[in-house]
């Protein structure tokens, strides 16, 4: 009996603090989610309804017309085909850039931890250094290089830039993860007869799930959301989603179509949101693994 009384007292104390904690969490969640909420409901309203001025009110007659318009018919500059082409540009840029930078990063991590060579520390330090160079500082040299190799103003050029820029990060992620990978397994595979790439593919990669997810999310988000490189090294129909969104919003055809702008912004944000929803919990787990063991 007495144990029960104590238990309920302790429960009472924690109940108060729980209310406080959850209350605070709810308040902050509301603050962070409000812009998203406004975007969502605005994108589902007609222009007339928006002009009434009740930003937070739910749509009276929800419509998906703004979404269809943003996707297929909205005018960007002089063409009125919506953002679908630019969405495609971004996909064509992000997928290879993420894949290549992740694969190269894991190969780098493998070499830097398990196939060490004289000077490996220096090389790694230099790669780390690359993470801290601000984008803006390299714009002009990069533009020159892209022009010289014939990749200026193309998706291929953007892929190259993002791969090179991402390598520092992906290498860091994989190196720290592989540092904790038992070297004896590599040795056992060497004696079993596996070569460099066989060890990589059959021993190391099967154990790399968490860090691959971390890297892919990180790279996907960064490259998808990039605006600076996209606006500097591409133009016209070749620009990625982010730049097109900016152009859409800034294209004036007399009326400011807030609902279409919001719908386009939502479409632009969807892929990264989706990636987080699907793989977010692995993201935290993988980051922890890398951080603790590295």
């Amino acid at each position: 009996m007495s144990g029960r009384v104590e238990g309920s007292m302790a429960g009472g104390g924690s109940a108060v603090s729980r209310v406080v904690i959850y209350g605070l969490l709810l308040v902050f969640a509301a603050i962070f989610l409000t812009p998203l909420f406004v975007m969502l409901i605005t994108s589902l309203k007609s222009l007339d309804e928006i002009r009434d001025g009740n930003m937070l009110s739910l749509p009276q007659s929800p419509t998906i017309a703004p979404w269809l318009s943003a996707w297929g018919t909205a005018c960007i500059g002089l063409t009125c085909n919506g953002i679908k082409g630019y969405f495609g540009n971004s996909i064509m840029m992000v997928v290879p850039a993420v894949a290549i930078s992740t694969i190269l990063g894991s190969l780098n991590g493998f070499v830097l931890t398990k196939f060490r060579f004289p000077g490996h520390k220096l090389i790694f330090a230099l790669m780390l250094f690359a993470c801290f160079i601000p984008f803006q500082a390299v714009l002009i040299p990069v533009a020159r290089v892209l022009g010289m190799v014939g990749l200026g103003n193309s998706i291929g050029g953007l892929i190259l830039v993002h791969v090179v820029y991402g390598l520092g990060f992906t290498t860091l992620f994989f190196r720290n993860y592989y540092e904790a990978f038992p070297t004896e397994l590599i040795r056992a595979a060497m004696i079993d007869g596996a070569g460099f790439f066989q060890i990589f593919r059959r021993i190391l990669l099967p154990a790399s799930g968490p860090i691959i997810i971390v890297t892919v999310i990180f790279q996907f988000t960064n490259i998808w959301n990039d605006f600076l490189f996209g606006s500097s090294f591409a133009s016209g129909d070749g620009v990625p989603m982010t730049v097109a969104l900016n152009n859409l919003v800034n294209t004036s055809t007399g009326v400011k179509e807030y609902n279409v702008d919001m719908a386009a912004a939502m479409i632009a944000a969807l892929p990264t949101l989706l990636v987080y929803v699907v793989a977010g919990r692995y993201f935290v787990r993988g980051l922890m693994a890398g951080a603790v063991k590295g």
Partner: protein
Amino acid sequence: MAEVSIRKVEKAYETYKAVHGIDLEIADKEFVVLVGPSGCGKSTTLRMVAGLEEITGGEIWIGGDLVNDVPPRDRDIAMVFQNYALYPHMTVFDNMAFGLKLRKFPREEIKKRVDDAARILDLTTLLDRRPKALSGGQRQRVAMGRAIVRNPRVFLFDEPLSNLDAKLRVQMRTEIKKVHQTIPTTTVYVTHDQIEAMTLADRVVVMNFGRIEQVGPPQELYHNPATRFVAGFIGSPAMNFFPVKVTNEGGLYVQWPGGVKLAVPPQRANRYAPYAGKEMTLGLRPEHLTETHDIEKPGVVRIEVPVDVVEPMGMETMVHFLVNGEEMTARVDPATHAAPGEMLPLAADMNNMHLIDNESNKVV
């Protein structure tokens, strides 16, 4: 035929030398154990034989081939690691089959070899499991199975039992010996445990500071150690070392600092006579310091020591006593009455004495 020949092999790192030009000839099907304290270069030597560590000097031959520049996979060797090094994402079967698959063996041949090895190692019911679902002893057996299926020219073991608990270690030791008897293959085995070395080896190689101290069959090392290091390293509890002075007073004696004089048996007198008058070290194993039953035997001398600690082990009792501040051990019958603080008469069997030169640390 797969003899291993290590000739003047050296391993130098940037700042220090791990192995100082060692020579070792290992015969076909021989079981050789490299033993020594940590940092003595035994594991480095093994890794050089495996090809996992580059050789900075000398030559390594396996089965008549110079393998200095041959990568591990082409040396036709198999290795068992301390942490087992099983591939965590593969089943037991796939772990054992991995090396054969990489070498493009036909499927039926792989299955046959893995099944055979599994039968020898009692792993047949575990073939579908992942390493995570195995006990330490089972993992160790899988690691051995992975080596056996390859049917290599040489087995290399790198401290394979040191992660197991004491009971399992003894069991697996027997198992390894059995496997070697079933499938006689040239074996190089590294351990820091001298009991493992003694029980498993055809020949033991004692290493210290990157050099070979002595090579020989276990009994030989035990009874005729060449150096003070070997004398102290082989045998448990370790050999007692007494600082003594050799004196010649109508017969040869060794004299403890306290003044106790022990007669050197006549058959050893000639050997030790040249050292008369010198400060030497007397080595005597605990089992040669026993209760006084056979005091009548020639060469056995009676001494009295102050008992410090008594450790009954069941079939025998260890008695520790202090000589000149140093702990010494005697191995007596459990029936012998010994209590801390009392004087205990002991029989020192001088027929098994060792005399060590303090300058060269060699047993004379």
